[in-house]
C-alpha cells in the first residue's frame, strides 16, 4: 500500500509539472499568434469609428499592451489561488464555461470512448486469431483506410450521407432548434450525439483494433499458447482463456491512452457538427484570442488525459499479478 501511495504521489508531482509546461506552451503559442484580438473580435470598421479612448479601453480589456511575462504570471498567480479568470468572449468565469461545455461533450466523448474501446478490442482479437485469412485482410484493410482518413473529412462524409441524403439524423447542434430548453428530451440529445460520436468511434476503433491485433499475434505465438495446445486445450479455450487474458493488460493501456485521441478528435468533429461542446469552445477561444478560456481548456483537458493514463497505470498494477503480488511482498 505504501508503494502504491508513493507511486501516486510521484505521478501527481509529474502532473503538476506537465500542466505548468502545457500552460506555458499554450501561452507562448497564443502570443505568437498573428491574430490581433481587437481586429478579430471588434472588426476593422467598428475600430475605425471609435474614439482613441474607446480603443484604449478595449486594448486594456484584451490585455494587448501588458507585457507577456506579466500577463502569464498574473494568470498563474490567480490559478494557484483557485481562480481561472473570466472568459473574455463569454464574459463568464472560465470554470463555468468549461463546466457547461464539458457537460455538453461528456455524452459524446464517453460514448465514443467506450464504443471504440470495446469494438476495437473485439475486432483486434478476432483478426489476430484469423491472421492472414480473409477476415483479417478485410478488417485490417478497413482499419488502415480509416486511419489514413482525416477525421473532419469523415465527419463531413457522414453528415452528407446520413443527415443530408437519408435525413436520419439532424444536421448539427446538440439539441433541436426552436425547442425550449426544458422541453428537450434525452432522446433528442441522443439523436444529436449519434453522428459525432460515431465519427469519433470509427477513427478510434481502427487504431485500437490494429494495436490489439499485433498484441494478439504476439500472444498466440508465445510458448505458453503452444503448451496450452499441447495439453489439449481447444482453440476456443486457447483464445478465450489465455489469449484474452494476456491481451487485456495492453488493452487497458491502449484504452486509457485513447482518451487523448478522443478529446483531440472532438475538437474537429464538434466544429463540423456545430456541436456546442468543449472542443468547439477551444476553437472559438483560439480564434478569438480568449486567452483565459484557452488556457483553462488546455489545462483541464491535459489533466483529464493525464488522469486517464494514471488510472491505466493503477489498474495495471491491480490487474497484473506480477505487479500486485510483487508489491505486496516488498
Amino acid at each position: 500500500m505504501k508503494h502504491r501511495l508513493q507511486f501516486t504521489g510521484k505521478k501527481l508531482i509529474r502532473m503538476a509539472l506537465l500542466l505548468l509546461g502545457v500552460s506555458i506552451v499554450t501561452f507562448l503559442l497564443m502570443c505568437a499568434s498573428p491574430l490581433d484580438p481587437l481586429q478579430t473580435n471588434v472588426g476593422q470598421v467598428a475600430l475605425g469609428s471609435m474614439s482613441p479612448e474607446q480603443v484604449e479601453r478595449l486594448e486594456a480589456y484584451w490585455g494587448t499592451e501588458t507585457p507577456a511575462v506579466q500577463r502569464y504570471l498574473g494568470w498563474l498567480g490567480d490559478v494557484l489561488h483557485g481562480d481561472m479568470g473570466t472568459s473574455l468572449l463569454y464574459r463568464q468565469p472560465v470554470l463555468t464555461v468549461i463546466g457547461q461545455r464539458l457537460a455538453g461533450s461528456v455524452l459524446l466523448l464517453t460514448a465514443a470512448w467506450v464504443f471504440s474501446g470495446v469494438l476495437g478490442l473485439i475486432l483486434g482479437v478476432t483478426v489476430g486469431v484469423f491472421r492472414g485469412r480473409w477476415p483479417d485482410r478485410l478488417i485490417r484493410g478497413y482499419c488502415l483506410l480509416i486511419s489514413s482518413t482525416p477525421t473532419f473529412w469523415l465527419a463531413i462524409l457522414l453528415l452528407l450521407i446520413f443527415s443530408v441524403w437519408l435525413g436520419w439524423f439532424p444536421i448539427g447542434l446538440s439539441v433541436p432548434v426552436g425547442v425550449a430548453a426544458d422541453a428537450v428530451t434525452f432522446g433528442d440529445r441522443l439523436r444529436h450525439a449519434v453522428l459525432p460520436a460515431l465519427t469519433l468511434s470509427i477513427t478510434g476503433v481502427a487504431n485500437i483494433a490494429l494495436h490489439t491485433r499485433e498484441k494478439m499475434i504476439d500472444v498466440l505465438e508465445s510458448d505458453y499458447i503452444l503448451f496450452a495446445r499441447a495439453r489439449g486445450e481447444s482453440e476456443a479455450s486457447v483464445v478465450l482463456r489465455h489469449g484474452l487474458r494476456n491481451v487485456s493488460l495492453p488493452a487497458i493501456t491502449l484504452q486509457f491512452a485513447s482518451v487523448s485521441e478522443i478529446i483531440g478528435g472532438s475538437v474537429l468533429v464538434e466544429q463540423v457538427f456545430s456541436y456546442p461542446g468543449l472542443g468547439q469552445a477551444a476553437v472559438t477561444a483560439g480564434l478569438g484570442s480568449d486567452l483565459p478560456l484557452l488556457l483553462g481548456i488546455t489545462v483541464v483537458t491535459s489533466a483529464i488525459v493525464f488522469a486517464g493514463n494514471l488510472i491505466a497505470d493503477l489498474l495495471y498494477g491491480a490487474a497484473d499479478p506480477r505487479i500486485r503480488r510483487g508489491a505486496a511482498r516488498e
Partner: protein
Amino acid sequence: METILEIEHMSVFFTQYERGIRRRILPVIRDLTLSVGAGQIVAVVGASGSGKSLLAHGILGILPYNSHVEGTIRYAGELLTPERSAELRGREIALIPQGVNYLDPLMKIGPQLTKGSREEKVHRRTRRALERYGLGRETAEMYPFELSGGMARRVLIASAVTGTPRLIIADEPTPGLDAKAAERILGHFRELADEGAGILFITHDLELALTVADQVAVFYAGETIEAAPAEDFSDVSRLRHPFTKALWHAMPEHGFNPISGAQPYPDEKAHGCPFAGQCSECMSDCRETDRIPLREFRGGMVRCLYPGEETVL
C-alpha cells in the same frame, strides 16, 4: 514389448514467402524414422536447429499453419491422424516443455493444469499430480513467476501426469541444470517409464541422454542418421555413423575433441550426404548420392554409405 510410437519416413515442410510472392518450401525434417516402446526411454540427440522440437510438435499435431507433414506416425498401432492427436494430446500424449515460460504468466497454476474444468475428478487428479512431485496445495494458488526454477520444472512434469500418459515427449526438459539436478529430473522420467509410459526425450546433451536412455536416435540436419542401443556408446567401435563417433569423441570423458564446421541449414541446397561437409570419411560418391537410405546395421540403424569405418582423429 508394445510399441507406443512408430514414426516412418516423416518429413516436415514449411512454406515461406520471400518478398511477398515467391513461395518456397523448406524441409526442416526429412525422412525421419523412430520408434518408442512402452516402458522405454528413447533419446533424440541433435544440435540446436536440427529440427528436434518440430518433431515433438509434429507428433502432437500443433505445428504452425504454414507447415505440413508427410510420412506415417502410428500411435499404439493405429495411424495418428490430426483428429486423433487432437483427441489424445493432454490425455495420453503429454508434452513436458523446457521451462516456466511455457506457463501462462497471468494464470494461477491450478486453473492452468485443470484447463478450466469444473469437474471435481479433474481437480482431484491435479492435486494428486502436484503432490506426487512434492508440491502442496498452495502451489495451485501461485502464479508462474512465484515458482522457483525447480518448482516450475516439477509443475511441468506434474502437468503430464494429470492425464494417463502413455507417451511423454520431453523437449529439452533440463536446460541450465547442473548434472545432479538434471539427474533428479531424469529419475522422474525413469519412474514414469517403469510405470509403462514410453518416453521420447529430446535433448542436445548426449552425455545426459546416456544416463537414462534405452535407445538413442541421433539427429543431424533434420534427419535421423543413427539409431543405437544406449550401451553401444560404451565403445566407440560399436557406433555406426561418423557423426555419432564425432559426438562420442566430443564428450568430456573421451577427450573433449570438438568437430569442426556446422550442420547445413535446411535452405542450403541438399545434394548428397548432408554430413559430407564435416565428415572425415567422406568419399566422392557420398557427395553425389542423394537421399541415402536409413538401413539396418549391426543391430541398429544408420544412414551412411560406409558405416562403421574407423575414424582417425
